[in-house]
């Protein structure tokens, strides 16, 4: 597996990034704040309308460094892509699968198996670790139903049926998600998912974590030559990175939900970092966003053994490993797409 390099997050507004030889230079007004060699980076992500020189955009594109712009509230704005990479054959096969509902269902069902499996084990582990603080009975009911749904999924060949099972399983999992929050419960609670806009602290954190994960997923898919915008489960919609959302399904729980829970349960963040706007939307302040990004980067460095590859990889490369396995499946090297089944 390749090496995980660093991601540079630029959170200060009114900064300007430019290229100097093989280095990226971060300036404010005319003062140079920092320089980083490009060869250590795999992604650059800016928040709040920082400027970037065309020279740097070109250098990032040609070295496959993902360059993404976000608003200061963490909404995706734009990304820079260079000349399209090769591997047209792979992308055409991806489109063929996407156009064929049955073939799409066969790939997508494995992704959802991954999602349910991972969510089941998040719950199982919690009941084991915090048996004294949890309503184990209630949670076991959910894990049992997730296990049953997985059995059904292995036979599904229809996308609508698949979505039905996925939706019902999501309701089950969300019904006990609040039980996993063990600290600061007064300010951090989960009564259901809301996202446009997030209306409470937990949803604001989840939305932000999903954005980071989606970004990594999209870059990983593009890096192996797949089209992140043409999916199997999520159907085409302009501007929606459908395939990134598909593959992300199996990683939401293990990479984003667990991350958000640890921020709250380890008190890395607290309620003071959140404020409510006039329309009810909950926003994080800069300080908290920085803490979240720092923790996200640290989490990405932690190593695990990939369940299918049996190889040590850092969490940060899991999206890349799944993108690579998906590409190899589409090219016919594997009998099925192997989801990330994390226990």
């Amino acid at each position: 597996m390749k090496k995980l390099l660093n991601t540079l997050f630029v959170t200060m507004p009114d900064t300007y990034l430019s290229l100097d030889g093989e280095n990226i230079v971060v300036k404010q007004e005319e003062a140079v704040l920092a320089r980083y060699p490009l060869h250590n980076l795999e992604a650059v992500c800016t928040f709040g309308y920082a400027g970037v020189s065309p020279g740097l955009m070109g250098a990032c594109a040609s070295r496959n460094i993902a360059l993404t712009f976000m608003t200061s509230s963490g909404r995706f704005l734009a990304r820079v892509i260079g000349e399209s990479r090769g591997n047209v054959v792979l992308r055409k096969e991806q489109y063929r699968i996407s156009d064929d509902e049955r073939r799409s269902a066969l790939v997508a069902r494995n992704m959802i198996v991954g999602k349910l499996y991972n969510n089941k084990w998040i719950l199982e582990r919690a009941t084991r670790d915090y048996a004294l603080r949890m309503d184990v009975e209630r949670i076991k009911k959910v894990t049992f139903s997730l296990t049953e749904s997985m059995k059904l999924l292995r036979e599904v060949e229809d996308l609508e049926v698949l979505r039905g099972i996925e939706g019902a399983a999501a309701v089950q999992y969300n019904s006990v998600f609040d039980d996993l929050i063990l600290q600061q419960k007064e300010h951090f609670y989960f009564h259901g998912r809301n996202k446009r806009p997030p209306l409470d602290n937990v949803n604001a954190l989840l939305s932000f974590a999903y954005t980071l994960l989606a970004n990594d997923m999209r870059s990983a898919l593009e890096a192996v030559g797949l089209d992140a915008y043409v999916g199997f489960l999520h159907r085409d919609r302009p501007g929606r990175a459908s395939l990134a959302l598909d593959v992300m399904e199996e990683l939401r729980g293990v990479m984003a939900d667990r991350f958000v829970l640890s921020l709250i349960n380890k008190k890395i963040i607290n309620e003071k970092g959140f404020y409510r706007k006039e329309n009810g939307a909950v926003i994080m302040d800069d300080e908290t966003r920085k803490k979240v990004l720092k923790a996200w980067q640290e989490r990405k460095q932690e190593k695990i053994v990939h369940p299918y590859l049996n190889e040590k990889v850092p969490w940060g490369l899991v999206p890349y490993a799944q993108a690579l396995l998906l590409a190899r499946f589409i090219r016919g090297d594997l009998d099925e797409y192997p989801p990330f089944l994390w226990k």
Partner: protein
Amino acid sequence: MQDYKEDDYLLLSGIQHFNFCRRQWALIHIEQQWEENVKTIEGTYLHRKADQPMIREKRGDKLVVRAMPVHSRELGITGICDVVEFVRDPDGVPLAGEEGLFLPYPVEYKRGKPKRDDSDHSQLVTQAICLEEMLLCEVSKGYLYYEEIKHRVEVIITRADRERVKASWEEMRQYFKNRHTPKAKAGPHCQSCSLNLVCLPEILNKRSVSSYIESRLNE
């Protein structure tokens, strides 16, 4: 004789990838994936000296041409010879813009030292086939120059060599026509492959994905 469209010509340099590993060749030439690694970068550096097409050296009876583009319509391939030495020879052929008769000998530059397999060898044979077709003469030998030993090795090109190399090109043509990436046996040579990270050779020897999923679900 087949007549291939120029757009479908295969790259001459591909034969050494193909001999190293069929799958590596397909990943590069069909899937267009290329992960630069130290070896390929070293290779580029080494070629820089040879890649100066404007330099023609005359040394007595020898005319040395660098980075010479060649092709074979019969095999449907195109590529570049690092160096071709034209040597005056009464049995040779006339060259445009030169007095007298010459015979061509391809010289291929290689990193490292002579290998035991014949991957370098096949590339030279292919170049000879191209030169024969373009100049209508016979190319009986060529040279492999090895950077590590700073020395060239003479390679005699036999009929059997030509047959073997043509069979390889036929096989590549079939894969290319079907856009098929063959599986290959993973082995120690995978460690030195520049596409190791894309190919995932270990998945080729793995149990099926179905059994991986089933065993996890039935724990």
